[in-house]
């Protein structure tokens, strides 16, 4: 049953940055999993949605990258290889690839699903550019891994420590390539501005949304978005640009565990 946590041994841990670790698990990849989909990760005291950052068909492994931000993620960061975690899923709608030239735009831990997507795109023979954004250069994620895969990396940071100082949408504005599609993930205010740039240039784009999730199986309603009532765990988390146009709350607010609105 897919909606029950499967308790798995942590097979490997990759320190991606000071605050981000990737946890590797053996996974039966005959069960379809698409970049952009997420799993529910259970550390036996709490459970949170995390996107899948690595899908390795050769080794039958998946990776889940987790940024240390609070109680749950700090506890997970303490775990070591051989420790156990519960994983259920995958859930939701992932990214779709189309055309020959892809640009990905990722902010912070938002690079996680995009890393898996970029590798999939390269494997399909697509040409991939990536805008990788973070607060500071130490937090730029997956740049070496993606460069190794053949992705053209364009970095930017809030503090300018990598060269370009500024936000993802500003970096994107300075790039004049033609793209068949874009895939975006990161803090929602970032995605909001990136969407404006992509809309102006007429590049079809998909965005991965983050909302408070409880059941992840489409019934609790906690992750529904205003405007359409779509469930981010089922109709999302990846939505197309034209779909986001009717999601009234995009870029404006989200909801907490009690359902109260919180502005971005």
């Amino acid at each position: 049953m897919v909606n029950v946590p499967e308790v798995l041994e942590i097979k490997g841990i990759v320190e991606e940055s000071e605050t981000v670790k990737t946890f590797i698990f053996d996974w039966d990849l005959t069960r379809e999993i698409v970049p952009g989909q997420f799993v529910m990760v259970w550390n036996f005291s709490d459970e949170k949605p995390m996107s899948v950052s690595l899908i390795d068909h050769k080794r039958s492994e998946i990776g889940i990258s987790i940024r240390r931000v609070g109680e749950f993620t700090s506890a997970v960061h303490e775990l070591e290889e051989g420790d156990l975690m519960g994983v259920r899923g995958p859930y939701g709608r992932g990214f779709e690839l189309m055309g020959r030239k892809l640009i990905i735009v990722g902010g912070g831990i938002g690079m996680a699903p995009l890393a898996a997507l970029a590798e999939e795109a390269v494997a399909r023979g697509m040409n991939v550019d990536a805008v990788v954004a973070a607060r500071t250069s130490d937090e730029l994620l997956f740049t070496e891994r993606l460069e190794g895969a053949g992705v053209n990396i364009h970095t930017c940071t809030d503090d300018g420590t990598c060269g370009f100082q500024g936000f993802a949408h500003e970096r994107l504005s300075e790039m004049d390539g033609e793209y068949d599609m874009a895939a975006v993930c990161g803090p929602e205010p970032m995605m909001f501005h990136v969407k404006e740039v992509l809309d102006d240039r007429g590049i079809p784009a998909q965005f991965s949304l983050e909302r408070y999730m409880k059941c992840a199986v489409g019934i609790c309603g906690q992750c529904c978005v205003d405007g359409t009532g779509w469930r981010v765990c089922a109709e999302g988390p990846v939505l197309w640009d034209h779909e986001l146009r009717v999601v009234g709350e995009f870029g404006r607010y989200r909801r907490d565990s009690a359902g109260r609105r919180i502005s971005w």
Partner: protein
Amino acid sequence: MLRTRICNIELRNPTMLAAGVMGSMASSLNRVYRAGAGAVVTKSFSLEPNEGYKNPTTVEVTGGIINAIGLSNPGVEAFKEELRGVDDDVPLIASVYGSSPEEFASVAASVEEYVDMIELNVSCPHAMAGCGASIGQDAGLTFRVVSAVKDAVDVPVSTKLTPNVTDIVEIAKSAEDAGSDALTLINSLGPGMKIDIKTAKPVLSNAFGGMSGPAIKPVAVRCVYDVYRSVEIPLIGAGGVRDFRDAVEFLFAGAVGVQVGTAIMYDGPEIFMRICRGLERFMIEEGFSSVDEMVGLAHEGV
């Protein structure tokens, strides 16, 4: 053909969204109605905001799920904004809960202007002490909660009962005696439990949760059947409805309408349309011209 009335509320069909499912926001309630439901019930809300339990709050088991979300809601004041956002044509039922008759009455009274009906959640099996099933397992307390709400509001009131009692008919009668205009049967069963066998840990953070889904349908149908013989007020069936056949069973047992919840996990909100189409075809084939003709048929000649 599917049109019906429950407590004088006109419904385009006898299906309703069950409480607790996709019911926290106007947007999702509107969506479920557009997907075909005859009416929608909100997620249960209370006077004050409530965070609910930590995850995992839901886990699948054979024949359904167990859940302990913990009645999370933003509180009645914030919830009013959602109720105002529900489209005018949507028959809207507010599920409310509290820890005392006064609290129930106060929450119900402050939202009655926005809704067509109030459903009293005296039956959640994983609620905090003093709420949910701890009320609905006590005929005297149930009577006091229903009476207080009936004194406070003019819209019809349905009391949603728990199956986890020795005699559901006794509780049903006390709700009817207190003035409840309808009964919703049943809330989730249990609580039940799921233990991970590799770690020997309960999966739900609350350890226990209410069981819902196809596996509880026989219990729910029996509860409707039992209660139908003893009360005069309309019954709304709930518990494991997944297709039109399930709906027909509930109608034959004595329900005037059915609520659908867990099945949305399997089939999405579009399930309402599918149930309604199936029901209509069944009625044509079997020669029924209205839902009312079907209600309670399983009692004839018994």
